[in-house]
């Protein structure tokens, strides 16, 4: 049904919507990361007004739409990993993790961070090799 709806669009309009959905996904991501950081600093500051699961749900719907439109418009997927954005995101992830374990002993906190980073890196390498 969704594909039937998409087929009513002219191909150039489908591509235009696809491009806009990518922009929208960036905005959702920015909102999600900002909300996570704000929640990490002051729990409840965002979630009192907007539950984070709603942003996550919107992102999921956005990703599904992008995937379907790419199929419909026969756009090839850009599979290259953008390391420029991966490293800042990974750093934010580590900071959030450190923040969530703030009450732990500092050395235990750093040890867990190191273990998580190493595990994450090895998993990433494994998938990249495949």
């Amino acid at each position, binding site marked *: 049904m969704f594909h039937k709806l998409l087929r009513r669009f002219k191909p150039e309009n489908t591509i*235009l919507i696809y*491009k*806009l959905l990518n*922009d929208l996904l960036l905005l959702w991501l920015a909102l999600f990361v900002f909300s996570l950081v704000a929640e990490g*600093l*002051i729990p409840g*500051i*965002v979630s009192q007004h*907007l539950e984070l699961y709603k942003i996550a749900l919107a992102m999921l719907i956005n990703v599904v739409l992008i995937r379907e439109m790419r199929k419909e418009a026969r756009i090839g997927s*850009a599979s290259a990993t953008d390391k420029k954005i991966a490293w800042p995101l990974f750093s934010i992830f580590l900071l959030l993790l450190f923040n969530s374990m703030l009450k732990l002993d500092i050395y235990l906190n750093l040890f867990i961070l190191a273990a998580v980073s190493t595990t994450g890196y090895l998993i990433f390498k494994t998938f990249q090799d495949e």
Partner: protein
Amino acid sequence: MWFDLTKDVPLAEKDYARYKKFQTALYALAFLLAAIMAVRVIFDAQNFTFSFTNPDSSKNSMAVPRYQGVDSPVENGRISAGRDVYFDMAATGTFSKAVIEFPQGQDSSGPDSGSIIVKKSYQAFLYPEGDPIGFKDGSLLKNNGNYYLVSQGTLRRFDADAVPALGYAPDAFVEIAPEELRFNPAGQLIKGDEGYPDGSLFKIDSDYYLLEDARLKKFSSEQAFLSQYGPRQALEKNADIFSKYPLSEIPIGFSDGSLISYGESVYVVSDNKILPINNPVTFLEKGFAWEDVIAASADEIALYEKTKLFTIKSVHPNGTIFANIENADHYMVKDSEKHLLPSRNIVDSWLHHSSIPVSEKSLEAASQCEIKQGFFGSYSCEIPIASLQQLAGTNYEFIMKLDDSTKIDYLNVSFKKDISRTNLVAFLRDIYNKIKNRYVSQAPPTL
């Protein structure tokens, strides 16, 4: 070069120009929504509701509306004409106005008119005033050459030679005015040959004891004793006294209203129970002071029954002492009443830590509004509360009076902030304090 996340997906020049326009609109809309969201976060409203049709619902965020007195709730939303209805809630923040709303009842017509007044303080300070309280048990007092001990609430005078016979030092007694004697009823005379009366305090080796029912109850620690009495009130004795007064198995802990800590937790002591304070914001908003927190041992914590969390919505428990900043009057909370401690000496007999500052002005109705009917049949009343923001306390008490008997299904109260520089500064200060509380160690004292 135009910002494009999908450069590898080309569009014809005409369509690309369209994309640029839509993209600009999308980002502009996102920034607009972000700005609206920021305004909502910074100048946030706090909403409270109570459903009379579902009074046990967990969604009810205010206490049960009631008539005068805590034990007379409004049943089924039926509000009698001309009677004051009280409803309380704890709201933190700097608010400009409160909007009270309720719908027209299904089986009754609404009121023709009515009014609501508001007070802001701590809920326990808004309790009705009970009888004044006299000196605490164990107090040693003297007046006009007579010596007294307060025992089981009564003022017991020592016989002429009983003071030296029992080993008391005259300078351990506090000189009081004659009018201070009337707040404790007179008790039996204390005679030197009859032994020590109940309420006597002893220091045996380095431990403190209270005599009760001819048995010595041991204080759990020196700090527990000092939370209740001054060091000079205890009579030094050796262990021989246990042959006359056996040791009771029941130990004595801290005074009601004391703040004790164990690990990272801080508790309020009241009625042989401890209430864990849920976070530093509650601690500060409730008027407590960090320097009053006493480090307790695990054994001392184990003496108490741990009860529900003490949150921003909780009422100060029995034993809390409020100090009026305008006239230095002190009040003690006891059994849903506040009781005046009528003199400085009486205050000193009870108070061994900081009192909680309150303002006399908070007892006066500071603001008022008239209830009006809206377009859709519901009633509302908008009451300015900016002038109350400087008053100590987290509790707002609304008192509503309707001219006609009415049945209502629910009651909503919404606290709102004006968009102003003052509120922005207050928000930023609040954020700063929250971050400081979270990241800068304010650990309570530990053993």
